Every structure is written in structure tokens, then in C-alpha cells.
């Protein structure tokens, strides 16, 4: 079930260029420029920095009124000059905005020309059209990923042993965890993009302008020679899929699996790893972690079965979260995303039907006024999503388990670990303990009111 939207009150998403910045932060020696009014760059830096508590250097072509009349080419080239001078990047991403798109800037041409005329052909420039009205930050993230691959990946006769692992917008700790799992399984990989060090950067001397880390350019170039691609994304449209591009252009076998949050989602990830590497059995350490998650699920399901969740955020993450909720009885009642993506709705309905859970309201392209209203009507008692859902917590007293982006009213969003068997257990503990804290807080009071004082409502609907 979906609800149409005319206007947006309290948005559940950010704009396309904001999402486009993140992948560039996960590439070695990369910088990024926003082609538009300087406010865009400033606002996005501010919001990304607030989540990661990290420097987020993003250039701007600082277009002003003159640029809107005569075009922004000169500004963009000047911006490229200055960024190159100060940062000496190996790659620069150029993202457009509402402004540059509306005035029709051809950044593909401008940047190509720039490399040529400035004799900068060793420098990669990836132009990504990201008008603010073109989609949410999710689409911006994915399109940037795809454009990077399109620009860099080179046809090669030489195959290598690596697996491409393409990740959606997940936390730095999650990226690290996926790398740990790949190492445990003994797989060589190209993880793209890799924000594990760049957006969760150790405090260390000396300070460098561009953080150490990120996917090396050479590895991205070599992606067509990989034995397979595992893409953590089953909700994205094919035209935004870098994995699909690698498959179609270079014949790299593609395994689309969900973000490995939840037992079955992680099973799918592990199974794909096993298939690609022809391992019939995964390491005992992995199996122990799986057994430990299962043990946690058995212990916790008694409390979780009284949870009725409202879940919101980016479609891929929302899908993964809904899956673990179905698995452990925190049955979702409302699921929403600000993205126009509607593919995740079908997938959720399949999962719901599989465990015969109650109906769930699925809302693509929604806003928080809608989410709040629907969550209240559906009797949600736990919210899972990013910090912008805090008004649901404050006004409806539905406790919020923070996950995703942005997390700005707590610390450590970049350190939140939720993927893999171990990460899922940690995430599940956060959910269960939130329900338990709420239950403990209200237990005696609600018990006494419902039972002793003889109120009429049936207890099946109470959190006790």
C-alpha cells in the first residue's frame, strides 16, 4: 500500500548531489566539486560532517547571478584549478545541482575540455549529473558510483582473482566488517567505495588534506577483470547499477544480494561468497558467529515479538532492516523512504507473506509528517532509522533506534556496526534492549492499570 504525496513536510531524504558526494569520499586521493551556488556545497559539507564528525572537504564553483546568465564554465574551471593546486587529487568528481542543471551546463564537455586544454590527462574527472530535483540522495549515491565505474573501468584481457564488492551507503564500521568477513573467507576483493578509513579517520599525525584510504583507482580500473561482482543492493533500478554495467559491458558475473543485516540476508551474502570461490564450506569462525547470532535471536524473540516497528531511511537499508524485523518478530507496521524507489515495496511484501506477518504500510517517496501519522495510527512501539525521525520519538513517545544516515543527535553513526552475523547481533541487541527499557519503564504501571484496575482493553495490544 502506498500513499501519494503532493508536498513534503519534514523530509525523509536529502538531495541528489549530497548523496553523490559520499562515493567520492571512498576513493583514494579523490576530491569533489559541486557545480552550483556555494550554499549547496556548504550545506552538504555541514550535514555530512555532522554525521561523521569528520572533515568533509567539498569544492564549489560558487556560481552567482552572472553565472546563471553567461554559464558557469569559467567558474568550474577555476574551481578545478584551485582544487588541484591545493589538494593534488588523482580524481575529481564534479556534481551538478539544480542551478547548473537548470541553466543546462554540459559538465561532461567542460571537464573533458579542461583535461585536454590544461594537459591534465593523468587526472580523472568524473562528471555526474545530480540535479536536486532528479531524485533523492540515494539515487545520487548510486549514480555517482556508476559514473565512476563507467569512467574508470577498462576493458582487459587479463583476469584476476579479485571479487568486486560494491556497497551502498552503509557505515564506515560496516564497511570494515565486510572487509573482515572477506578476509576470513579468504577472498581477494575490490571494495568500492571504501569509506572505512576516509570517513572514520584515526586522529594521527601528520594531518593530510585528503585522508588516507579509499578504493585505489587502479583497482576500480581493473574491476572488469574480476571473477565476479557482489553488489549489496537488490532494490536499485538497473540503470543505476554499477554491477549491472560491469556485467553487461565486461561480462563480470553479478550477484545482487541484500545488505547482510539479518540472518538470511547474511546467509545470502555468505552463500554468494561460497559460490564465487567454490567453497562448499565456510570457515568455522563464520559458523560460530552465525550460531551466536541465532542464539541471540532465540533469546530475544520473546521480547521482540511485542515490537511493532516503523522503519525509515534509504531503500536498501530499510529493506535489510525490515528483513531482520520479520525474522525476529519485531513486525514492521510502517516502512518508508524518501526515495522514489518503489521496488523495495514488492520485496517487503514477499518477506511479510513468508512469515505471515500482519499487513504493513509501505511508503516510497514519503515524508516524516506522513510517517509519524501512520506510525501512530498503526500503533508502532519502536522506530528504526536515522536521526530525522527524532520527532516521532519526541512527540509520539516511540523510542528510536538510530541507524543509517544522518545521525546528528548522537555520536558514532560512522561506528555503528550492523552487518554480518556479529553486526546483526549487535543491532538486534540495540532493538531488543530499547524494547526492554521501554517495557521496564512502564511495566508495573501498565500492569496495574490494565489488570488490577480493570480497564477494559485487551492486554494483547499492550507492551507489557
Amino acid at each position: 500500500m502506498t500513499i501519494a504525496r503532493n508536498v513534503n513536510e519534514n523530509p525523509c531524504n536529502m538531495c541528489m548531489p549530497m548523496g553523490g558526494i559520499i562515493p567520492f569520499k571512498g576513493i583514494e586521493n579523490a576530491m569533489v566539486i559541486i557545480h552550483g551556488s556555494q550554499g549547496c556545497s556548504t550545506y552538504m559539507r555541514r550535514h555530512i560532517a555532522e554525521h561523521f564528525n569528520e572533515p568533509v572537504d567539498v569544492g564549489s564553483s560558487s556560481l552567482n547571478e552572472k553565472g546563471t546568465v553567461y554559464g558557469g564554465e569559467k567558474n568550474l574551471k577555476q574551481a578545478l584549478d584551485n582544487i588541484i593546486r591545493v589538494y593534488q587529487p588523482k580524481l575529481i568528481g564534479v556534481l551538478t545541482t539544480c542551478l547548473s542543471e537548470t541553466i543546462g551546463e554540459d559538465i561532461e564537455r567542460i571537464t573533458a575540455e579542461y583535461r585536454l586544454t590544461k594537459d591534465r590527462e593523468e587526472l580523472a574527472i568524473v562528471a555526474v549529473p545530480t540535479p536536486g530535483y532528479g531524485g533523492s540522495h540515494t539515487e545520487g549515491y548510486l549514480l555517482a558510483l556508476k559514473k565512476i565505474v563507467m569512467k574508470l573501468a577498462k576493458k582487459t584481457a587479463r583476469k584476476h582473482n579479485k571479487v568486486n564488492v560494491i556497497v551502498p551507503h552503509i557505515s564506515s564500521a560496516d564497511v570494515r566488517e565486510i572487509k573482515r568477513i572477506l578476509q576470513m573467507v579468504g577472498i581477494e576483493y575490490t571494495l568500492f567505495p571504501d569509506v572505512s578509513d576516509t570517513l572514520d579517520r584515526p586522529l594521527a599525525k601528520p594531518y593530510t588534506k585528503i585522508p588516507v584510504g579509499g578504493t585505489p583507482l587502479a583497482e576500480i580500473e581493473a574491476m572488469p577483470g574480476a571473477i565476479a561482482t557482489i553488489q549489496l543492493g537488490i532494490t536499485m533500478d538497473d540503470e543505476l547499477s554499477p554491477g549491472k554495467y560491469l556485467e553487461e559491458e565486461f561480462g563480470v558475473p553479478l550477484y545482487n544480494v541484500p545488505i547482510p543485516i539479518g540472518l538470511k540476508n547474511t546467509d545470502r551474502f555468505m552463500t554468494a561468497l561460497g559460490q564465487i570461490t567454490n567453497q562448499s564450506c565456510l570457515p568455522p569462525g563464520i559458523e560460530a558467529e552465525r550460531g551466536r547470532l541465532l542464539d541471540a535471536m532465540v533469546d530475544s524473540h520473546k521480547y521482540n515479538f511485542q515490537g511493532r516497528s516503523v522503519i525509515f531511511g534509504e531503500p536498501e537499508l530499510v529493506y535489510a532492516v525490515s528483513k531482520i524485523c520479520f525474522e525476529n518478530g519485531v513486525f514492521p507496521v510502517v516502512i518508508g523512504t524518501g526515495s522514489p524507489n518503489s521496488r523495495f515495496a514488492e520485496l517487503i511484501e514477499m518477506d511479510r507473506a513468508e512469515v505471515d506477518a500482519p499487513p504493513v504500510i509501505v511508503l516510497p517517496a514519503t515524508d516524516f509528517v506522513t510517517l509519524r501519522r501512520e506510525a501512530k495510527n498503526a500503533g508502532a512501539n519502536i522506530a528504526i532509522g536515522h536521526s530525522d525521525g527524532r520527532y516521532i520519538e519526541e512527540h509520539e513517545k516511540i523510542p528510536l533506534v538510530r541507524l543509517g544516515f544522518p545521525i546528528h543527535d548522537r555520536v558514532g553513526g560512522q561506528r555503528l556496526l550492523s552487518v554480518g552475523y556479529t553486526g546483526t547481533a549487535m543491532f538486534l541487541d540495540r532493538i531488543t534492549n530499547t524494547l526492554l527499557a521501554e517495557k521496564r519503564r512502564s511495566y508495573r504501571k501498565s500492569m496495574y492499570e490494565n489488570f488490577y484496575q480493570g480497564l477494559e482493553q485487551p492486554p494483547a495490544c499492550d507492551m507489557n
Partner: protein
Amino acid sequence: MAVTEKDLQELFEKMPSKVQKNRRKHILIKNGEIENPEIEANTRTIPGIITNRGCAYAGCKGVVLGPIKDMVHITHGPIGCAYYTWGTRRNKAKREDNIKNFINYSFSTDMQESDIVFGGEKKLTAMIDEVVEILQPKAITISATCPVGLIGDDINAVAREAQKRHGIQVLAFSCEGYKGVSQSAGHHIANNSFVEHVIGKGEQEEAPAKFSINLLGEYNIGGDGWEVERILKDIGYHVVSVMTGDGSWEQMRNAHVAELNLVQCHRSINYIAEKIETKYGTPWLKVNFVGIESTIKSLRDMALYFDDAELTARTEAVIAREVARVQPIIDQYAKLCQNKTAFCFVGGSRGHHFQGLFRELGIETILAGYEFAHRDDYEGRDIIPSIKPDADSKNIPDLHVEADPKRFRLKMSPEKLAELKQRIPLSDYPGMNVDMKEGHIIVDDLNHFETEEFIKLLKPDIFSSGIKDKYVVQKMGIPAKQLHSYDYSGPYAGFNGAVNFARDVSMGFASPTWNFITPPWKNSPALSGEMNEGGDK
């Protein structure tokens, strides 16, 4: 999937022969030919056989005294014993006007080595003084732990002196952990003292309202007692006192004015019920508020006892309303439970009480037993005269009481009473055995080894017991439902409780977790199936 004597034999053969010999007598297969077979119960647990049983202190302080909210309960001993009985039974208590509530407190004399050597009476005395000064309770209990008896601390003398000094009641309980064979000894010790020193000591001569009852053996775990009280009050009963869940010393002192005692947990409270009848003439009725049918039956039995047209009508009206309200919800949950089997092994009454509720959900209890019951809890009170006292049971003095010359009241004519006894379990408990079905198993003091063996033999769908065996059961891949603490859920009594129980039990079956135990890569066909179904590839 019935168990044969041969299965049992194989099971026993894994045990040392001494153990075999002992345990055989504690395990029965219900056999239609013998309506009420004999079972051994309330005897010593074999050392090293991992049991769920606790000690006399647990039965006295932990079970019976602990829930009384307006008394300060002092544990005289080293710290552990007080710690382990601190809030662990989940007996809820509400705040009431004029009744203090110390339920969140744990008081220990915290004996140290030097107290063991030089005696702990002074420390106990000091603690009482401190407690009186700070908290000003109306009454205090002192419970002895193992070393107290051994070092010869005279807690009765300390209590007497303190009572004199402070002018409030101070009761001493010699419930050292090593007494008796289980918690049961502690229940008895606590019962005796309450009959002797508390009940009947209040000012009231007459019941303050019609249809006054006491609710005995109800400990308000997870709010059970509140749900029962809700129903009773709705029908028109007046609850004089509850022993002891959310109970109070104040109210217990006037328990003698009630016209009927309801007995929920027979084992832990039957001594009080019996002595009150002797002393004040109040009959007791065995009730069971667990399960819809049992609750209805108990309510109707009560109506029969009071024999009042209006009360009877109101009883039926409340039953009808409640059933109409909860049955549809329960039916939904019951769909998930059809044709399942359960083990139900709990303390001294729930092993029996929950069977009906299970059955209402479509779940058959194929193995049941008690942790610390006596033979009468299995075979019914009729066999009490034939139980031979042993060394352990003789250690707990049997209290002798007589009719109170001032306060004894016949509640009805002896003739009417005799007639009623034919129809309702008045001052009687027929025991668990009669309710068990052909081929089902009854086990007294089920131990850890047997738990695992019976699970392997019978593969139940759900196992109801306590937290100590719960995780073993779950590790074996079977859902467990704690019936001691309800896994922090509840209440499970009464109409609303039945809904909660149905929900909680069915969720164990609904949870897909149990199907996930084998990793997909351990099972090649499933593995490829998984990929075909889910992957893009």
C-alpha cells in the same frame, strides 16, 4: 509418540545403579489400569544429579515471606542468600495508602568470617535497630541461613528482645538451607509461624463486607494476582488478604474474618489453609485461575459455596462477558499451536495448573511434574494419612492448633458442608495424577540428565520450566517458556492472562528462528535453492 517401560529402562541404564533405583520411583507412565498410581516425592535429591530444587531458605524467605510488602525481611547470614532472593521472583507489589512497600529492598546482616567465629547475634540486633529507626516498619522477619543454626545464633531470642524493645512484631524463621529436602520445608516453616503469630491477631471480628475471601498461595508473579483480584472484585467478592503476592502483614492479621479461603498453590500454603479451618472454621476451596475453563470452574465453585442468586448471576455475567472478549483473540493464537506437545515441569502447582491452558490452545502436555511437591500433590489429599514421615520431614515440626474459643465460626451447617464437598473441591485437592492422560509421563524432581533424555525420546514442541533448564532446551532446538518468571511477561492467570499466554506461546512457534539452525552452506541443495530464489544471478 508414547514412552514405553522399555524406553524408560534404557534411559535408566545410563545412570549409576544407585541412581536408577532411586529415580525409578519418581517416574510414572500414566496407565489407565491404575487410576492413581503411587509416586515417590518429597525425598532427598541425589547429590550430583543436577536438580532444579532450592533450599528451605528459598521456600521460606524467597517464596512465602518475600512478597509481603509491608514487612522488612532480614536475611541473617552471609551476603549471597539475601542477594539471590532480591526481586528475582517477579512478585509485583503496588503502593497503597497507609501500607509501606519495602519490596525493592534486600536486607542482609552480611556475616563475615568473624561473625561465624564469634556469633552474629549482635550484628543482627544492630541491624534490626537500624531498620526500625530508618524505615519504621510495622513488622520484621528474620530468616536464618545455613551457618546460623550451625554456629548456634539464637535468632528467636534476638527477635523476642527486639520485639520487646521496639514494640513491633519481629518473627524469626529457622529456615536454614540444609533443612528438609527442598523449598517445601521452608513453606512449612513460614506457614507455621504465620498461623501462630500473625493470622487472627487483627482487631476485626467480622468480615467488613459480604462474600469475603482470602486468596492463598497466589504470589502475583507478573501480576497474576492482580488479574485474579480484578475478576473477583468485578463479581462482588471482597478480598480480605492475599497470601502472599502483593500481600501485607496488616491484612493477613485479619484473615480470620473471611468466609472462604481460596487455595491456588496447594503445596506452599496448604498448612495455613488447614490450620485456619481448624482454628476459625473457614473452609478452603482449591481453585485454579490458570486457563479459561479452570477459571470458570473456580468461579462457579465459589458461587456454589456462597449460594447467593445475585452473586451467581453476576458470576455468569462476568464469565460470559470475559469469554466473549478474550476467546476470539485466543483463537487466533491457538491456530499456531494446534497438535503441539508440551513438557510442563514447575514448582508445586503450575506443573498441574498450566495443563488446562495448554490444552485450550491445542497443546497436549505429555510430560509433567513438580520440583518440590509431596505425594498428595500428585495423588490427592486422600493419601496423606498413608504417607510415612521420614527423617527429613520430621525435622519440620507440625504445628498443633485448636479452635479459637473466641473467633471460631461455623460458616455453614456441617451437613451443608458435607453435601458441598461432593460437588466442589472443598478442603481437598485431588492432585495432578487424575488429570494426566494415558501414556503420559509424570516425573517428580526432574533432573538435568532426564530432561535431555526425555526431550530426545519425546521431542516436545515446547518445554515449560524455569531459567536453569531453559537454555539447555533452547540449545537443543526447542522453544522454552519459563513458568517461574514468565520470561518477564505475564500475567498468565485469569482471562487476560490466558490471552498473554496464548500470545507468548504461539510466538515461540511463529518465530522462524528454529528453522535456521543449519547454515545454508552445510546443505548443498538448500544452498542452490536459496540462490535461485533470492539472488539476481
